[in-house]
């Protein structure tokens, strides 16, 4: 999540509230304080509130929350006369464009950094790493309107930001650091998006890099904003958030003509919400007047509209408001989470364990009674553990993860026994005898199945011990077994048995093969048992259903 740096001095000036009060209330509007420093605080805001990714946005929200300035913030927009055309050939590439002209900005080094910070945070939260939306900010006075957003030849060239020579669009993707980082978004298209001015000069190669020509400096007075992307709503949101933040610093916002439309309007959207519904959701009595008062603190426009309705004006920058309940959550925040009196619901129900969990619990009890100690191995493992070291073929049904994070964890366990031997290896230096067990899920195909396994290692561990434990475990689980000779290569021939129940193999036991012991660097014999707990009476018929 983006971390926003807020300088106390600026925030105090914007809100008229001292830093101590700000620090106390920041978490209560929905944020995590990361670090408190001498002159600033680093705050992490939730990704649903990109309007709080700037000091201006935070100041706007805090003023409402603290009651210093409530209700809908009003923004006026005048036409700039600037026209922007969109090339229909961009339809399958990056079709949507948003824009605005911002005049009379007052930029210094710090405010440029802050603006870039907002831009980056929006790229992350709204732009999904620039793929959904990318934002460009330009010095308007360096170029000549009207502007065109076109699908350009890959061989077209311009001077990208931070370079002093012309490069082709393809060259930028190969050589420029930003080009390399974001090439994947556009690489497969036949033509690339490009923004040019009336004299065919390049402003930007979205979503990759701006041109050096329109670099924003401390001398820049007027800005041109462009947002391009694949989602119309998100493209507009980015414009609204940047424009309102700059308007709060005193700049003038002007609209741009794109086709038939004048954008942005920075006007709110309207919703009629029910105070009864809010009351039922939150569990506090709310009439339209009370609900309105809470919403005004959260910078909505709000006024009672009938006996149980409130007409709500949602500020343009609140892209997160999708549903009436989003509005009610803000009412709850304004009310103060600390002011809710928690209460247990009167719902009467009788709790019950899930049959599989009940089987796991009794299996644990039995194995503990037999002297085994529980371990909780990982479910993610690898072929070396499941197959190679066990002298077993890897099961066809093994489930592999597509993008493993390490060689150790490439597949989901199909058996527990290999994990127990790994555990023995890890604990080689610990006192013998060691009797370990695990119960838990394994996966075959996409099916999750319950298993139990145990191992016993000490100088006289042998087949008889394994047989006795397998027999006791099955007896205690009320599983009637038939025992036949096994051909499991992990065990010593002649010292291994298959457990069958109702004509189906449900487990294996015996003395682990010395070659397997060697592979695990174990020095003492190991007696082992593994059984499939689906054979236990009472196991639900449809595995995997909750």
């Amino acid at each position, binding site marked *: 999540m983006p971390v926003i740096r807020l300088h106390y001095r600026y925030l105090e000036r914007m809100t008229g509230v001292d830093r101590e009060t700000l620090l106390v209330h920041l978490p209560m509007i*929905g944020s995590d304080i990361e670090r408190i420093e001498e002159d600033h605080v680093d705050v992490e805001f939730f990704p649903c509130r990109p309007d709080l990714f700037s000091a201006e946005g935070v100041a706007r929200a805090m003023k409402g929350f603290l009651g210093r300035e409530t209700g809908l913030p009003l923004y006026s927009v005048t036409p700039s006369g600037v026209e922007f055309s969109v090339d229909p050939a961009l339809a399958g590439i990056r079709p949507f464009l948003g824009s605005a002209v911002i005049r009379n900005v007052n930029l210094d080094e710090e405010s440029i950094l802050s603006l870039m910070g907002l831009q980056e945070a929006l790229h992350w939260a709204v732009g999904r790493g620039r793929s959904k939306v990318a934002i460009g900010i330009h010095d308007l006075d360096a170029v000549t309107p009207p502007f065109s957003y076109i699908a350009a030849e890959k061989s077209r060239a311009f001077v990208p930001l931070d370079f002093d020579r012309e490069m082709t669009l393809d060259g930028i993707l190969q050589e420029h650091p930003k080009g390399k980082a974001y090439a994947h978004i556009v690489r497969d298209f036949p033509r690339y998006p490009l923004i040019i001015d009336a004299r065919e000069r390049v402003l930007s190669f979205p979503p990759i890099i701006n041109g050096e020509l329109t670099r924003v400096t401390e001398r820049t007075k007027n800005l041109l904003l462009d947002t391009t992307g694949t989602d119309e709503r998100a493209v507009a949101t980015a414009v609204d958030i940047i424009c309102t933040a700059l308007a709060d610093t005193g700049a003038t916002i002007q609209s741009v003509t794109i086709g038939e439309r004048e954008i942005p309007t920075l006007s709110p959207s309207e919703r009629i919400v029910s105070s009864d519904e809010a009351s039922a*959701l939150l569990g506090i009595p709310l009439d339209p007047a009370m609900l309105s008062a809470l919403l005004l603190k959260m910078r909505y426009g709000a006024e009672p509209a009938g006996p149980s309705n409130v007409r709500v004006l949602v500020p343009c920058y609140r892209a997160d408001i999708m*549903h009436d309940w989003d509005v009610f959550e803000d009412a709850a925040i304004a009310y103060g989470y600390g002011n809710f009196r*928690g209460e247990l619901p009167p*719902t009467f129900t009788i*709790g019950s364990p899930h049959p599989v969990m009940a089987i796991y619990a009794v299996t*644990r009890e039995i194995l503990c009674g037999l002297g085994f100690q529980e371990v909780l191995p990982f479910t993610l493992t690898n072929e070396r553990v499941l197959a190679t070291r066990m002298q077993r073929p890897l099961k066809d049904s093994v489930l592999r993860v597509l993008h493993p994070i390490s060689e150790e964890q490439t597949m989901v366990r199909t058996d527990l026994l290999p994990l127990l031997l790994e555990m023995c290896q890890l604990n080689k230096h610990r006192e013998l005898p*060691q009797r370990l067990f695990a119960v838990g*899920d394994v996966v075959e195909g996409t099916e*999750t199945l319950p298993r139990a396994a145990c191992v016993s290692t000490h100088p006289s561990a042998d087949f008889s011990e394994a047989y006795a434990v397998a027999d006791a475990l099955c007896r205690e689980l009320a599983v009637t077994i038939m025992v036949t000779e096994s051909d499991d290569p992990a065990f010593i021939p002649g010292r291994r048995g298959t457990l069958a129940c109702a004509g189906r193999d449900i487990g294996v036991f015996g003395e682990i093969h010395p070659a397997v012991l060697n592979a695990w660097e174990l020095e003492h014999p190991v007696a082992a048992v593994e059984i499939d707990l689906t054979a236990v009476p009472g196991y639900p018929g449809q595995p995997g259903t909750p």
Partner: protein
Amino acid sequence: MDLSLNEKRLLHLLEGVKSADPETLAAGMGVSPESVTQFAYLLADRGLCTVERETRSTFHLTEEGERYAREGLPERQLLASFEKSIPLQELTRHPLARIGIGQMKRKGWVVIRGGIVEKTGRDSPGDDERALQDPSQGGPGLEELRRRNLVAEHQETRYRISITPEGIEWVRRGLDMSEETGTLTREQIVSGSWRDLKLRKYSLKAPPRRVYPGKIHPYQRLIGEMREILLCMGFSEIYGGLVQSAFWNFDALFQPQDHPAREMQDTFYLKETMPLPGGYERVRDMHLFGGETSSTGWGGRWSRERAEQCVLRTHTTSLSIQHLANHPDPPVKAFCINRVYRREAVDPTHLPEFEQLEGIVMDKDVTFRHLLGFLKEFYNRMGFSGVRFRPGYFPYTEPSVEPEVYVPALGWVEMGGAGIFRQEVTAPFGIRHPVLAWGLGVSRIAMLRLGLSDLRLLYKSDIGWVRETPSWLGGGDSRVEGQRCR
């Protein structure tokens, strides 16, 4: 003064060798070394021998230590990564910079002036680096390595048994080697012949043999405790597959298909697919335009193929929503404590798999206030008396809340997330009443309660730790078993 036969045999043996360890003497007597120690303590009580107990520490390298022994300490590797000087900013990009820069400075190998790191030339190998090559030699560098957790101590207790002049005197006077009874036989007990036997005495000074009972893993025990609390509070347990379709894991929970949490770098995707359930179109419509609710939906596109792709479940909420879809009528109170997966590299505080606890309550007229009441009750029963609430954000709840509990040593600690399922989540499944939901990482509580700083210990268990951790974890605070099921 009576001596048992075994004590006499030991004394006899000692008189020949004067001094030996229990293992040597055990071989001579044909008994276990533990028994020899027992006998020796009995003799020592009478001043016939001495038992010297010596605890010796040996040191060995930890996994991290072994790596540095091969590759050099981080500061040494870092020092070797540049010539005479380097800008600090550039050096911080080195993967070992976080540990290495501070150590280089502390050891005086470098000075940092105006953002430039310069070698001082005084960087010959220190005691710690010598000790790293051979920790068994001890020496001044060892303490430093222990502090950095690069060597670990292993304690070993050895005994040395020596005969005293009095003991020699006793042997010279002649020992009566007639039989004494150790273990009583059935015959002796039944017949009453035990009355004529000389029963050997055991010493209480010799430590008992340590035995380790079969036991439930401490972490599992904590999970069991939470399970009991929820069962007592009337919740039914749910269980389900580790493999879920992205539909149940994400789409059904109104996570947009382009949400960062759904990306490959955070989720374990599988090549397998699962068919979508009947009525999936209602979920699709919710994403596209908000279905029949007051919601706008996410807009954009919705791909059926993306929804069919399988993942290792990233939360047990995928089971909760399926449970609700199967039981849309109130009331429902259900919980699940089970394993979930995130694509995270293994380190002391992150693992790709861990346990999550999740609870849901669906009923007519339940409210946000009930959610807060529930959370408070649950955390109180887990032993946290201070609970407070902050606004939170989760894609599938609205309102959302982050509960925090007060831990005396740490202050307020974030403890999971909660909220009321959005209508965008519940409406497609015909669920007409609010669903209160909360979840938390169980391992977080386990670390607090078991005093662990490394999550890995829970899964790659050192069985020594499991053996030494008491089964009863409730002592020492107000969590008394009988109070739990009021």
